[in-house]
């Protein structure tokens, strides 16, 4: 029954999955451009961001159509409502990757990162991309368990973010104000990226369990 409708719901999930895939790649490439002063890769991330924006519009249009025409209830309704929220968060993840790429482009051909903080950003990039890959499986409905382990990954990102502050605030910091500002912002971009991923994962758990995600803990 309602085959066309079920197909539309599946398509909506698939669209979101594709979006997450895009922003995972974007963050992977943005990090590479940051670590290696790779202007070409940075440019690619910047120009590809429009794909994420378009995907978001398409997902919203589909969700709107389902609400208008099919009057979804129960699990179906949760999928549609969660998707509307998720599409926005995923688009933000894309924007954050874009910001990283723009920072790399702005300083080119100089490196943005002083050598002593490079390892921290390598890890930030790794964990964020890992988070996004897991999120893709959660969104596609392949791995609900991964939603829970996302929170641990997010804790790891928060920890690196905090440590970087300690480094920048240290009296031995010798790279001046401008790099300090860059690092603070960049680290924040990675940290927000992970937060958005966790928030989307919680929305997807809500689809399954019907329990509203805990708002107070979702945005730190």
């Amino acid at each position, binding site marked *: *029954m309602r085959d066309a*409708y*079920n197909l539309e719901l599946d398509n909506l999930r698939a669209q979101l999955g594709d979006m997450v895939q895009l922003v995972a790649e974007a963050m992977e490439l943005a990090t590479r451009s940051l670590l290696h002063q790779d202007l070409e890769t940075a440019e690619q991330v910047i120009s590809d961001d429009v794909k994420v924006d378009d995907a978001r519009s398409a997902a919203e249009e589909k969700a709107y159509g389902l609400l208008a025409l099919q009057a*979804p*209830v*129960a699990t*179906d*309704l*949760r999928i549609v409502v969660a998707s509307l929220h998720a599409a926005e968060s995923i688009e933000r993840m894309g924007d954050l990757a874009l910001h990283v790429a723009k920072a790399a482009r702005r300083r080119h051909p100089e490196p943005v990162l002083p050598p002593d903080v490079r390892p921290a950003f390598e890890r930030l990039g790794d964990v964020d991309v890992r988070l996004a890959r897991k999120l893709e499986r959660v969104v596609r409905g392949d791995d609900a368990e991964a939603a829970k382990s996302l929170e641990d990954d997010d804790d790891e990102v928060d920890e690196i973010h905090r440590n970087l502050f300690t480094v920048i605030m240290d009296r031995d910091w010798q790279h001046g104000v401008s790099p300090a500002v860059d690092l603070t912002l960049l680290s924040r971009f990675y940290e927000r990226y992970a937060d958005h991923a966790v928030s989307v994962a919680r929305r997807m758990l809500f689809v399954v369990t*019907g329990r509203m995600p805990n708002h107070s803990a979702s945005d730190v």
Partner: protein
Amino acid sequence: MAKRIEVKDLDIYYDKFLAVQGVSMTIQPRSVTALIGPSGCGKSTFLRTLNRMHELVPNARVEGSVVMDDDDLYGPNVDPVNVRRQIGMVFQRANPFPTMSIYDNVAAGLKLNNKRLKKSDMDDLVERSLKSANLWEEVKDRLHKPGSGLSGGQQQRLCIARAIAVQPEVLLMDEPCSALDPISTQAIEDLMLELKANYTIVIVTHNMQQAARVSDTTGFFNLQGVGKPGELVEIDETTRIFSTPSQKATEDYISGRFG
């Protein structure tokens, strides 16, 4: 006015055939309870047992109990006519008495109950009932024209006015809007929301969006298979039934995934 109905382990039989099995529910006063479910699941049959209307079918009987506040509706000395006086009913097809005027249609219940009222009191009561049914403004200048001359939606509201003229405790409605257009449906739904301030309302509907719009509590009836008895699968707050029902059968039905 407005009483609580407590149904416990109700089995409904037509002769030897068990039509509905094991229904237990509490129907709260001053609220709208909607009953949904596929055709043949026994929801209308169940509704009729709440005012013993099903007894009009020969050999129909029930086991279990239906208690309104403290009165057992199936007690040994209970007159079914008296039950129906307290628990009114509105049907799928509007059924005004065709030869009677609008006025007489509303007054009929009282006349049949041998209430002797002064003309002015009767006029008041007819006016009040028609106003409660949101029909007064449309018919006040033609009260003595036949009720059958009204539109379908107006006829249904006339039937509601007739049902509430005898001041029942409970109003049962069996698919009251299924023969009406969306505007008349809207009028009846608005009316239900107004009437629930004073009455206990139970409505059977095939329109799930209607159940979602008007009811506080929704019960889902289903049957296991052909020839098996209908049963109450789940009853809960309406928001819960339409957002996170606890039974898969309920979710499948409200999401349109059946069969």
